[in-house]
């Protein structure tokens, strides 16, 4: 399968009764790359993952994973892929070790290999101390790590992750990103779905934006951002009279056109490395004696992508994620 993409979907359609969950979805991921499928709830992300992992049959279209047809070669394909769902699909009333051993046996590893692999994965995912505890005592992040470990038992060349960080707190999310990053550097092809632009940006080589069952935009994170716009500093000055002075100060940091709204004393400044600039901006405004009511660093969200691409807000999105401004965005900063 030299030149074949690791994941290829062409014109996938799926109906649930009258709902058209997938409406001609096309996806492609090269071997060893990370493809993020970005979209709001109900866009068809999970349906796509289920078709690619042989859980659902498409009503029309075709898909190949690792060169195997997801319908015709489903049985063979199942020993080439791993699936980490959004549910942390592990058994609550078994210990972490028992879960991994069981899944190992169900991957048809011999008893001794399954046990050894379970211990190895527990070590890798920092779950050794909890390995003899029932999973129902685990935190959300620990469950996700165990779930991911279970999907890696046979060290599959292709891994599907359906919203791997949904429901995790910031710490859990960062830890998960680190784990995914390590997998990728080991050469695993990953398809992950997410509702967060920042997550796609952080992890993926290519991003496919999905809406209503079809891809509405695709490309690298930079290409997408070129369409959507990058980070921006938004501030509200306390006095209308300070507007010009503030713009004067901020011009130093701007990488584009500064927008002002005198009525609301609102200024929007396109920036890069915004988090690193914040302190300097505050200091400069202070020096210029310009009191500020509000100052925030905003990054484009899924909503911004949708507004730009479709002219409407993303439907049914969860509340936008608040990422602490102190954490620099390495990838997007470049």
């Amino acid at each position, binding site marked *: 399968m030299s030149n074949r993409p690791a994941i290829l979907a062409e014109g996938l359609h799926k109906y649930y009764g009258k709902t058209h969950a997938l409406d001609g979805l096309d996806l492609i991921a090269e071997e060893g790359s990370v493809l993020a499928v970005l979209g709001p709830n109900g866009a068809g992300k999970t349906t796509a993952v*289920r078709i690619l*992992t*042989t*859980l*659902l049959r498409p009503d029309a279209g075709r898909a190949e994973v690792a060169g195997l047809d997801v319908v015709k070669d489903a*049985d063979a394909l*199942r*020993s080439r*892929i791993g*699936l980490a*769902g*959004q*549910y*942390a*699909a*592990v*058994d*609550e*009333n*078994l210990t972490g070790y*028992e879960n991994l051993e*069981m*899944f190992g*046996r*169900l*991957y*048809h*590893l*011999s008893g001794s*290999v399954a046990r*050894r*692999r379970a211990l*190895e994965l527990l*070590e*890798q*995912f*920092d779950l050794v101390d909890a390995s003899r505890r*029932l999973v129902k005592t685990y935190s959300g992040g620990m469950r996700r790590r165990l779930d991911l470990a*279970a*999907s*890696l*038992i*046979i*060290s599959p060349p292709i891994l599907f992750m359906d919203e791997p960080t949904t429901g995790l707190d910031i710490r859990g999310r960062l830890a998960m990103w*680190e*784990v995914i990053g*390590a*997998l990728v550097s*080991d*050469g*695993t092809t990953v398809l992950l779905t997410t509702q967060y632009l920042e997550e796609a940006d952080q992890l993926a080589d290519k991003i496919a934006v999905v809406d209503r069952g079809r891809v509405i935009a695709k490309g690298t994170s930079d290409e997408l951002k070129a369409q959507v716009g990058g980070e921006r500093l938004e501030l509200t000055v306390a006095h209308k009279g300070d507007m010009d002075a503030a713009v004067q100060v901020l011009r130093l940091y701007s990488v584009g056109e500064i927008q002002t709204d005198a009525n609301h004393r609102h200024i929007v400044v396109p920036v890069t490395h915004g988090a690193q600039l914040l302190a300097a901006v505050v200091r400069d405004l202070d020096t210029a004696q310009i009191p500020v009511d509000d100052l925030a660093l905003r990054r484009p969200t899924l909503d911004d992508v949708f507004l730009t691409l479709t002219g409407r807000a993303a439907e049914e999105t969860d509340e936008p994620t608040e990422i602490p401004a102190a954490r620099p965005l390495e990838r997007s900063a470049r």
Partner: protein
Amino acid sequence: MISTKDHVTQTLTPQARPSLYWTFADALVLAKRHLVQIPRIPEELIFATIQPIMFVLLFRYVFGGAIAIRGTTYVNFLMAGIFVQTVVFGSTSTGIGLATDLQRGLIDRFRSLPMAKSAVLTGRTISDLVRNTFVVIVMWTVGLLVGFQPQGNFLFLLAAVGLLLLTSFAFSWISATIGLSVNSVEAAQSAGFIWLFPLTFASSAFVPVESMPPWLRVFAEHQPVTQIVNATRGLILNHPDATTIWIAIAWCVGILVVFIPLSVRAYGRRTAR
């Protein structure tokens, strides 16, 4: 932490064995999954036992005095009905368990693995069979404590227990089909139970069907629970009737023939939510 490809990787290939081997091996892995959990969730087993005990006490001491049975004591008549009711009600745990697995996304994971398709179902029905065996033993003991005197010889009693376990297994597959067809654990709970009430109460389990009005009696006499109760009762009370026993077995086999394929099909199609 973090490095997936290392020395173990090359040994992580599935063992090559005939698919029939995996049909059993995978089922056993999953049966073990359920069996190790029984002592970890003791309340489940306790409640599964308390309910039939309540029925024994209720019918033995509250209603029993008003029910006259020809040829034997009421408690001797009652226990066959209680045993059948116990295994039939107990079978609902199969569907509830599957609906829970479905809701938690475990069925999705199992279906993405290269394992035998039937294993999730057979694993659960087998472990539920083991669990039900335990509950039948408890009920038998409770019966003895309240005056139950089995009359049949050892072989008859063994046959009675065998028929009860076959019934348990058969009804588990109906339950599995229900559990995989509904959309929530709660629905699996009610849908799994509700149809069992007319089936167990409008039967010969607790009263002789002769006492029922004609229209109900027609139903009661011909439905499977009555046949199974009568066959069990005959064996326990030492007057086995070959025809009834064959009809009871035929019902169980018929249920299996219909519901095993139905539930396997439902399993192959269902995903979480």
